């Protein structure tokens, strides 16, 4: 087995056309596309810090006094009142929101500017100083406590006024929605467990949407390193399958079978060769791109581990594609299937987003693209670059793994074991 794989590597290293296609072409295209489309990508993916107005009409002490008066009026015993007031102070929604808006994790995205009144904030919008503001009404915390602890009133109301219908408006909306959702859930849990589970005061826990909205921007070199990598990796499969067909045509395969080798050993060797060559091909491209353009230079060890894991799973898919194309060409005694697939690689690459981000496609085309193995790999790589963890990209990776298993099973099933014995 090792000899067969070593032989495939040796032949590849001696075949200039294949080397050019599999190793140098993606790098050359990456240079061309990276330089020519660099600016387009930067403008599409980077978000400038934006200002958000905050109009706080509430005084917490007043709200607490009013809440205490209500509790006394309800005739609650003094210890219970003291306990509720402590809990209310600790779970003050106004404090939680102001803490969140000043949190470090949001600093890169937004800057909060305080306004004395709603009128002042409206004027700031009119003068385009800000595009959105959040108003905390006078009885915001009081209403929230009444609703949470006494099950009275209709709950607190938070007012968001935004003139932006773009990405900044969406981000702000997401931050507020996430805050409200998280606050409600945690407060409800705290009440249901009678204070044993406390409401979180850590602003970083208020919403994963906040985490999503600080995705790192992707530049053109990063995008096309991935795009060209996943596309040209697909060419490895027809290249090796064509060689396998040639081996049969020229009776080299027959020679191997006469040595006592089992046909399935040969098929497995093609799977391993396809996987190994693709892995080396992708890692070479990533390394070269990082050395020349600093593509992944600032990434941490965790990113590289995730990158290697994803690359390995995509390489396994290309290996299984190699084995299925080998099986089909040997079974049909015809290399046209391999040629047919080879001519479709560009279509797969387009659908998978190797040339243009799939965000620009229609929803239907986007879905199709993400179901192509190269598209799934591409999106996974991009998500890793944006700071997602390997666990988060696993659903997409699992598509690649599923397709790998299917391709392997089919290739073994159709491989002409009997005829070539």
């Amino acid at each position: 087995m090792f000899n067969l794989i070593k032989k495939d590597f040796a032949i590849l290293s001696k075949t200039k056309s294949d080397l050019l296609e599999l190793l140098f072409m993606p790098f050359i295209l990456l240079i061309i596309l990276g330089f020519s489309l660099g600016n387009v990508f930067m403008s599409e993916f980077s978000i400038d810090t934006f200002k958000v107005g905050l109009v706080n009409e509430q005084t917490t002490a007043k709200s607490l006094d009013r809440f205490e008066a209500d509790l006394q009026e309800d005739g609650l015993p003094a210890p219970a009142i003291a306990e509720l007031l402590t809990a209310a102070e600790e779970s003050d929604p106004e404090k939680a929101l102001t803490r969140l808006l000043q949190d470090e994790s949001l600093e890169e995205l937004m800057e909060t500017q305080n306004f004395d009144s709603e009128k002042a904030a409206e004027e700031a919008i009119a003068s385009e100083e800000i595009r959105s503001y959040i108003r905390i009404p006078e009885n915001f915390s009081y209403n929230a406590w009444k609703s949470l602890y006494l099950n009275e009133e209709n709950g607190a109301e938070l007012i968001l006024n935004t003139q932006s219908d773009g990405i900044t408006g969406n981000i702000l909306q997401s931050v507020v929605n996430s805050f409200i959702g998280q606050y409600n859930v945690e407060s409800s849990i705290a009440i249901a467990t009678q204070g044993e589970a406390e409401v979180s005061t850590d602003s970083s826990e208020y919403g994963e949407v906040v985490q999503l909205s600080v995705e790192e921007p992707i530049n053109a070199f990063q995008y096309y390193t991935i795009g060209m990598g996943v596309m040209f990796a697909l060419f490895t499969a027809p290249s090796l399958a064509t060689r396998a067909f040639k081996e049969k045509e020229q009776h080299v395969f027959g020679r191997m079978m006469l040595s006592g080798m089992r046909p399935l050993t040969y098929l497995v060797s093609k799977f391993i060769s396809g996987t190994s060559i693709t892995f080396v091909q992708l890692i070479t491209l990533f390394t070269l791109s990082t050395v020349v353009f600093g593509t992944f230079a600032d990434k941490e060890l965790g990113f590289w581990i995730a990158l290697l894991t994803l690359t390995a799973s995509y390489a396994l898919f290309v290996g299984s594609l190699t084995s299925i194309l080998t099986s089909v060409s040997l079974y049909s005694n015809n290399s046209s299937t391999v040629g047919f697939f080879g001519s479709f690689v560009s279509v797969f690459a387009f659908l998978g987003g190797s040339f243009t981000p799939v965000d620009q496609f229609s929803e239907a085309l986007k879905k199709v693209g993400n179901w192509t193995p190269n598209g799934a790999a591409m999106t996974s790589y991009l998500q890793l670059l944006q700071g997602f963890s390997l666990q988060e990209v696993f659903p997409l990776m699992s598509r690649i793994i599923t397709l790998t298993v299917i391709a392997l099973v089919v290739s073994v099933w159709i491989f002409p074991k009997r005829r070539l014995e």
Partner: protein
Amino acid sequence: MLEVKNLKKTFKKTVAVEDVDLYIEEGESVGLLGPNGAGKSTTISMISTLLPPTKGTIKYKGKDVLKNPDELRPILGVVPQDIAIYGELSAYANMKFFGKIYGLSGSQLEKKIQEILELVGLSDRQKDVVDTYSGGMKRRINIAVALMHNPEFLIMDEPTVGIDPQSRNYILNMVKRLNGEKGITILYTSHYMEEVEKLCDRVYIMDHGRIIASGTKEELKNILSNEETIVIEVAERKQAFTDLLVSQKGINQVAEEENNYQLIVSKGDQLLGEIFEQARQTNVKIKSIHIQTPTLEDVFLHLTGRKLRD
């Protein structure tokens, strides 16, 4: 040693080989002679266990090799008609690869590579890439690879196709030595009659997928014991002259090639006078006439009405 009975192979509706019976004794050199498309390569693909027959049996030392190919494969070396090696690699790398898949390693492998390279006369070019070799050198390395595991039985499928006379001679002498000195049993297919005559003890003649004659060279030539061959060289062949020769009583077969006519005639018939007269009538200028003893080529012409290279 090897016995083939009633072998048949069909590809869809085309019958490629039918009713082939042959046997090979240990240490023999047997020829399978026939024109292109006669079914020789299909027959040896079946004998070498790479292509299952539609019908028939192949037994090696009494054991069915179709059911148990591993009975034959370890002692079998096959030289395919195609150059079945990796042109991108050197001769040395090819031999190392095939030696390893046959289980050779270390000093044993190295020793074997050098021994075979010496035998085929390629020691000094062993590190060169095969694609840079001449046709004759490629043929020699093609044979070398088949010898890496010391086969007792060597099947060679037209191993001299498309090479220069010098390389061809080298290969023929090498095959003779493999059979004579090393005792390797050889099944040699060719459409070159002179190769089979030089190398083989016994010959099977194939045409249209069937064995049409077999025996020692003498036995086959005895088929023509009552006939002889007249070869006429003319300045230019003419259809009218051909027609007259075909209709001439006593001429059994007429074959044409370039400026030659090859006639199989009944021994003792005095036909030269008639032939000269027919040439005069059709304005054909005869440059020379030879009367020769039959060759295997003549036997094939007699049996099929065609020349081997038609």
